[in-house]
């Protein structure tokens, strides 16, 4: 079981690496989305520092959303998804493998790029590590929830936009606690509660999303 | 609340109370009317299709109309 799990993760990583563009595109979108804000809100450091955590989190959310549509779509179109559903391993495990591969190609690069953008937005220094920690705990949940949306839109007429409409409401709890973790760290308050809740959201999404995504995939193959 | 005009005035909040009730009425009646209209339209099309199927091949399948 684990061997086939890592087999699929390795294949997806090799595909992403061969295609190359994916994670680079996502990080570029993330950077551009954040850099736009000073032009909109004005360069005044005080304002930027105040909204830095929120801007970075919202941009991370949208960047994750960008790459989710193709999570199952390429496999669905070339027939691999059918064969994955027919492999001697439960589909839920394979969905989890796809989510981890997705997180490694999008979530991780975002976490690496985030502190750089925090500097651009003049975020207070002691918010950096908390930002990385919160993103590290939040982005897997985003990938898990996004996988459900990606599975549900297979075979639909309007994929991309529909996916964001379905999934964004479910992202809101992660956004709220992710930003509040960073803000209260900057404000010097305790951040244990936020991290516990972010962890809780992740543990909650871990079993629910592969089940729902697998059910969605099975329906798309009917 | 004896005179009509003071009732309609709603203690100065007329501009909020009546639009709320009005909007509720409009939307609820609206969705009801739309639903009934689609129901009637679907039944009409089904009857038309059934009659057409009957005329086209009266021998095929039992001939009975839509209730």
């Amino acid at each position, binding site marked *: 079981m684990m061997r086939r799990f890592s087999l699929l993760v390795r294949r997806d990583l090799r595909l992403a690496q061969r295609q190359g563009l994916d994670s680079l595109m996502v990080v570029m979108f993330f950077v551009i989305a954040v850099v736009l804000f000073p032009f909109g809100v004005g360069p005044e450091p005080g304002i930027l520092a105040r909204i830095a955590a929120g801007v970075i989190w919202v941009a991370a959310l949208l960047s994750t959303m960008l790459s989710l549509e193709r999570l199952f779509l390429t496999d669905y179109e070339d027939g691999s998804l059918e064969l994955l559903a027919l492999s001697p391993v439960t589909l839920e495990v394979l969905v989890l493998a796809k989510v981890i591969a997705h997180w490694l190609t999008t979530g991780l690069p975002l976490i690496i790029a985030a502190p750089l953008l925090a500097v651009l937005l003049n975020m207070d220094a002691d918010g950096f590590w908390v930002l990385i920690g919160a993103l590290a705990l939040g982005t897997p949940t985003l990938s898990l929830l996004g996988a*459900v949306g990606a599975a549900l839109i297979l075979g639909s007429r309007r994929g991309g936009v529909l996916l964001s409409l379905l999934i964004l409401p479910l992202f809101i709890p992660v956004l*709220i*606690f992710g930003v509040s973790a960073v803000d209260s760290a900057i404000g010097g308050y305790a951040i244990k509660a936020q991290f516990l809740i972010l962890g809780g959201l992740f543990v909650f999404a871990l079993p629910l999303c592969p089940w*729902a995504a697998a059910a969605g995939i099975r329906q798309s193959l009917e | 609340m004896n005179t009509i005009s003071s009732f309609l005035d709603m*203690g*100065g909040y007329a501009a*909020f109370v009546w639009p709320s009730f009005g*909007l509720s009425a409009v939307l609820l009646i609206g*969705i009801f009317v739309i*639903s009934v209209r689609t129901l009637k339209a679907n039944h009409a099309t089904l009857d038309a299709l059934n009659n057409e199927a009957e005329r086209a091949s009266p021998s095929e399948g039992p001939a009975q109309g839509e209730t």
Partner: protein
Amino acid sequence: MAMIERFANPNRFLTLTRPLVPWLGGLTLLSLGAGLYLGLFQAPADYQQGESVRIMYVHVPAAWMAMFCYTSMAISAAVGLIWKHPLADVAGKATAPVGAVFTFLALATGSLWGKPMWGTWWVWDARLTSMLILFFLYIGYMALSNAFDNPQRGAKAAAILALVGFINVPIIKFSVDWWNTLHQPASVIRMDGPSIHPSMLWPLLLMAIGYTLFYLWVLIIRMDADVTAGKIRALRQRRVHG
């Protein structure tokens, strides 16, 4: 689940529920009429909010129905997915627009009610914000169920979304409440007044009952229309395949 069930079952459901429709209609109008009469004429004004408290009689029932419809969508989704009951998906798809209308009404009347108190049309109050997110969940459900050529495929996909969404509603509610207390604006007058005066309770209950009956009334009509549309598609498809 026997094959015959796929077609006969909806017909059995329709023959059972069709005669109900006029009764349901009558009861709805009766309870709404009584509720409106009591709410507008008999019930006292609120000493703080004055007459504007009467908006409560359309706002609170709409908010209840918004949640009630989403719950019934989640239940019919579960029944449809677990027992593969064909009518469950029909019920879910028929409920969604009605639920969306109730949610929109709750938002609109909430903002109309809030304007005189807070001076702005929209306040990021915890309940209104949760209602707004619920509205997006409805729109997502309806968009997904219509995004497929095959309506049944859409209904099934939307059912999974309704289930996942329903499980997330308490989490969203909890996080929005937390978020709201974090950024607590100075004074927020409670939406439904300091305490419900008994004479205010009756119209509220009657309106809530009226709204629920209205939902059931429109639900049966919409399900009947959807089953008939299914038959039309089947007839047309059979013509294609000869």
